[in-house]
């Protein structure tokens, strides 16, 4: 691996991520106010949505795009499908389903970190990647909820006494409910909406938004990553019940997913930039949208596991090591 790939770690935003990790490691009281952290995560979604939409309005539709989105969609269904049986070896069906959902879905901030990495390396990627980000959110959740429902049903068979309340439960969370929860989730909706607005206003209309959504991007990202660093380090300290199996899972599955995507993308002839973005999407695990939906849809699962792994292990791994690693792999192939 050459050094230039890791030079991305000298991106100021990434340096603030390390600062956050350091601050929490020495038990500093440094903390971004919670409403600011939430605002920054909305800001980032709005900014990438509108930027992606504008890029789309310029590039228009093309075949590569459909291929790329096809791979994205495939991974969103495939990842929960192959990780669930793997996880079932060590976990009950609910936790396995929840973790499968988390890893099948995506992390917008990891996506953004990859975008910054490519910018730093002057590599271009398609505006439709924001679309890939949107469409990879829901499928994994839907599959996981179905898997959890199956678990519930099989438990009910074993324990006829509990059947009544369990029947009620599965009826409460029908597929319709899950679809609704997934597509009306604030993050998804803001991202889709901003994407659409970007397409509508186009390059000219974007100019008035640019000082906010474009020029401030790195600075606000730095602030957000500072907070993410704090959260990551705190979570690592408090991690309970995440044994060697899950730790290995949190580091290996991303690489495996990335390798699958890179292979498919190279076969399909996608550009290096598009390939990296898709690889990172597949490698990333959701710690904002999916955990919020899963708390409602699979209450039996322990958020300490699925949320903790995605946030404290897979997220920093991807940002620090994963992205440059996947980039190297693409270069090698």
């Amino acid at each position, binding site marked *: 691996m050459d050094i230039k790939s890791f030079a991305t770690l000298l991106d100021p935003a990434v340096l603030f991520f390390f600062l956050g990790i350091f601050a929490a490691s020495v038990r500093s009281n440094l903390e971004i106010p*919670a409403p600011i952290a939430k605002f920054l995560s909305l800001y980032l979604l709005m900014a990438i949505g509108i930027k992606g939409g504008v890029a789309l309005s310029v590039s228009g539709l093309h075949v590569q795009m459909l291929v790329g989105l096809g791979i994205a969609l495939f991974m969103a269904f495939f990842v929960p499908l192959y990780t669930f049986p793997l996880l079932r070896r060590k976990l009950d069906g609910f936790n396995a389903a929840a973790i499968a959902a988390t890893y099948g879905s995506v992390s917008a901030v990891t996506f953004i970190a990859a975008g910054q990495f490519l910018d730093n390396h002057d590599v271009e990627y398609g505006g439709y990647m924001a679309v890939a980000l949107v469409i990879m959110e829901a499928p994994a959740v839907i599959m996981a909820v179905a898997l959890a429902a199956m678990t519930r049903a099989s438990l009910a068979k074993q324990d006829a006494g509990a059947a009544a*309340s369990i029947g009620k439960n599965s009826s409460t969370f029908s597929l319709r409910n899950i679809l609704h929860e997934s597509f009306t989730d604030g993050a998804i909706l803001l991202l889709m909406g901003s994407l659409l607005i970007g397409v509508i206003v186009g390059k000219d209309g974007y100019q008035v938004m640019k000082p906010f959504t474009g020029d401030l991007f790195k600075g606000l990202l730095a602030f957000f990553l500072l907070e993410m660093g704090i959260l990551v380090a*705190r979570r690592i300290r408090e991690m309970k019940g995440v044994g060697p199996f899950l730790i290995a899972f949190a580091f290996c599955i991303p690489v495996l997913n990335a390798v699958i995507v890179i292979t498919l993308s190279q076969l399909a002839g996608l550009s290096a930039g598009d390939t990296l973005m898709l690889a990172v999407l597949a490698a990333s695990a959701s710690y904002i949208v999916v955990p*919020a939906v899963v708390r409602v849809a699979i*209450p039996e699962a322990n*958020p300490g596991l699925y949320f903790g792994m995605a946030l404290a292990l897979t997220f920093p791994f991807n940002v620090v090591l994963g992205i440059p690693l996947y980039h190297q792999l693409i270069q090698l192939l």
Partner: protein
Amino acid sequence: MRRLQPKKLLTIITSRAIEKMIIEALRKRGVGGYTVVNASGAGASGIQSGMLDSDSNILIYVILSEARLITLLDDFDDMMNRSYRIKVVVTDISILPRKGAATSKNSVA
């Protein structure tokens, strides 16, 4: 002075993600009055820093009569049976009733 009226205060501590579900449960029982406060915290499922939407807690306060409380407790009991992570707290309180509201015998004075 108007006399104080004995009531119950129902306090629910839960994750922000569950808020909609709780409010819906209240609505179904005809409870339209409640107060919500943002919180952080820690518990069996780890730290809730309040920084991310998936990582935030709320406190929901509902002032109600004992009769209404009992029906609601059934609902929350059911939710807890279905493994929802909610803390359900009941406190005895008194309130200053609104103008014209029936007064009880219980008085602070």
